[in-house]
């Protein structure tokens, strides 16, 4: 019985755990235990779904027992099972290691609320990923967004508040744009189910209204995924959020938005419309390239490591956009792989940073001088994540960049190759700045001696670092999933 309900349970369990967690307000440690247990459960469910998808193809689950175009459907296929795996996996790892850091950064009365928010955010993200209904997506998007705003505002610095407000305004504009887009699509077709939409939009290729809907959706989702000129909210949001929250949203939120973009482009509108009628590649490639180069360079000049990593995230999203815009199976595979791998590496990096914050407080480059001597494991983890970010072979980052470069070479677009390469070099430099400060500078005389980070935090950080290595050495599992999804999404369409 349970097996059939897995798609629903995937989201419902964290959703319903949230109020329970909320009721545990007096006992934050219990709330944390509950949140971690739930996160692990979602991971198990995601694995179960993955096994099912691998055997039986797409799974559909009808809420309320109403068949899809009338009721709300959850549809799991190879594409979103990949995202489910990464989101739930990251959540499981980060939640379970978060206790010490949360206890230090958040006043006790707010700790249970933080975990409630985290659970809601997790549920929202999983729901966005799994749902097959355009409007349900909007609702779940709002759940995750609202909880994210609250999470960011819990940061210690008062700038967390303005960052959160800025994100709220931009995020709500984005959500409203998505709402307008979905509304127009609904107006044209009379349905909200994505599969049904795709089917019915097929006959409306030339419609101007469809173009408008398309534009609004792309901009709306673009705001959410911090597509280049719309990314202004992201650096502040990541920089001032509590460390654990930074780690969680950096590793998952934008990835889910990228997934939504892929879903709309390929499933709802279909590659044919998106790439031959709208020439999306001429939007995504330049935007992606500028994002990659510009924000990488901006990252170079940051003194706050969190901000630096945040800008690097925008750059990495640029890679994904480039991968989508290359319009071939290899490129899309690369983009999907990068979604997966980037979650791993940013998760590892932000967790390592959380460990540094735990001891030092303010993660500025000046403050971490010589820290490697005192926190060797933490810094080693940071270096591991950094190597993956750069794309060194034997780490996960290499695999996705390999696919991206390969895809660009396949299309013969050498400038794209050059951009990927140059940006990797810039990544070397900004990762290097941290490494140099931590390893090669002596600890300032007046700085107090710090101990290694707490073992739980360290353990989860290393779990992600090792995952980076594991998926760099042994990426077969993920690549087959990603390339299968990419092939299915193209469905025979060739530019």
């Amino acid at each position, binding site marked *: 019985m349970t097996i059939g309900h897995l798609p629903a349970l995937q989201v419902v369990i964290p959703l319903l755990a949230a109020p329970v967690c909320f009721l545990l307000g007096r006992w934050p440690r219990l709330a944390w235990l509950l949140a971690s247990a739930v996160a692990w459960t979602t991971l198990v469910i995601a694995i179960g779904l993955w096994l099912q998808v691998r055997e039986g193809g797409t799974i559909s689950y009808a809420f309320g027992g109403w068949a899809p175009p009338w009721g709300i459907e959850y549809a799991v296929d190879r594409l979103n099972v990949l995202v489910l795996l990464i989101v739930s996996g990251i959540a499981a790892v980060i939640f379970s290691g978060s206790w010490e850091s949360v206890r230090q950064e958040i006043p006790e009365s707010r700790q249970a609320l933080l975990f409630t928010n985290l659970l809601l955010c997790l549920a929202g993200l999983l729901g966005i990923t799994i749902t097959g209904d355009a409007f349900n997506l909007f609702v779940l998007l709002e759940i995750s967004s609202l909880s994210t705003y609250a999470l960011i505002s819990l940061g210690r610095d008062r700038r967390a508040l303005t960052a959160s*407000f800025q994100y709220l305004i931009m995020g*709500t504009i984005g959500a*409203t744009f998505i*709402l307008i887009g979905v*509304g127009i699509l609904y107006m044209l077709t009379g349905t909200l189910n994505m599969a049904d939409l795709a089917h019915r939009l097929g006959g409306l290729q030339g419609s101007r209204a469809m173009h408008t809907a398309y534009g609004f959706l792309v901009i709306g989702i673009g705001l959410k995924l911090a597509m280049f000129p719309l990314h202004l909210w992201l650096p502040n949001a990541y920089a001032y959020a509590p460390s654990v929250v930074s780690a969680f949203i950096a590793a998952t939120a934008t990835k889910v938005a990228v997934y939504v973009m892929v879903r709309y482009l390929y499933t709802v509108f279909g590659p044919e419309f998106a790439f031959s009628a709208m020439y999306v590649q001429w939007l995504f490639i330049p935007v992606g390239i500028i994002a990659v180069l510009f924000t990488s360079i901006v990252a170079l000049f940051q003194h706050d490591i969190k901000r630096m990593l945040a800008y690097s995230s925008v750059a990495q999203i640029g890679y994904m956009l480039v991968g989508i815009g290359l319009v071939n199976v290899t490129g899309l595979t690369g983009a999907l792989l990068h979604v997966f791998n980037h979650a791993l590496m940013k998760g590892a990096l932000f967790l390592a940073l959380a460990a540094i914050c735990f001891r030092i407080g303010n993660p500025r480059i000046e403050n971490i001088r010589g820290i490697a001597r005192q926190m060797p494991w933490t810094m080693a983890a940071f270096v591991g994540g950094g190597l993956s970010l750069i794309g060194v072979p034997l780490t996960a980052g290499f695999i996705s960049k390999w696919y991206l470069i390969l895809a660009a070479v396949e299309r013969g677009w050498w400038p794209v190759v050059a951009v990927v390469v140059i940006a990797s070099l810039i990544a070397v430099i900004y990762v290097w700045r941290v490494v140099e400060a931590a390893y090669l500078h002596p600890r300032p005389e007046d700085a107090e001696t710090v101990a290694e980070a707490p073992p739980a935090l360290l353990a989860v950080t290393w779990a992600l670092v090792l995952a980076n290595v594991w998926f760099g050495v042994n990426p077969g599992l993920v690549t087959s999933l990603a390339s299968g999804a990419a092939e299915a999404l193209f469905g025979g369409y060739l530019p």
Partner: protein
Amino acid sequence: MGFSLFNYWVVILLMMAGFYTVIASGNLVKKIVGLNIFQTSVFIMYISIGKVFGGSVPILAANTDLYSNPLPHVLILTAIVVGVATTSLALSLAIRIREAYGTVEENDILEISRREDDEE
């Protein structure tokens, strides 16, 4: 043709007024008001989609069998709730910002933040 789309155009005008308030206004609370106007006009757009000429409120009644489309109504009910949720969160953020910075004017806040960044 003209009149049949006129409705949408008015809605678009409203939407843009709200949108303009959001992005151009410097006061955080007014931004929130703008956001609400923006969203409300989107709601009107949705409800317009659902209207059928000659239809009635979609509650089963004996004397008619032409009803307006209930689905947009449902969607908008949900969206209104989402809107108020966002608004309340935004408002409490505004209060906290006021407490932290002593102002809710965007420019002043930017000024303060910039000074803070310089100090670091």
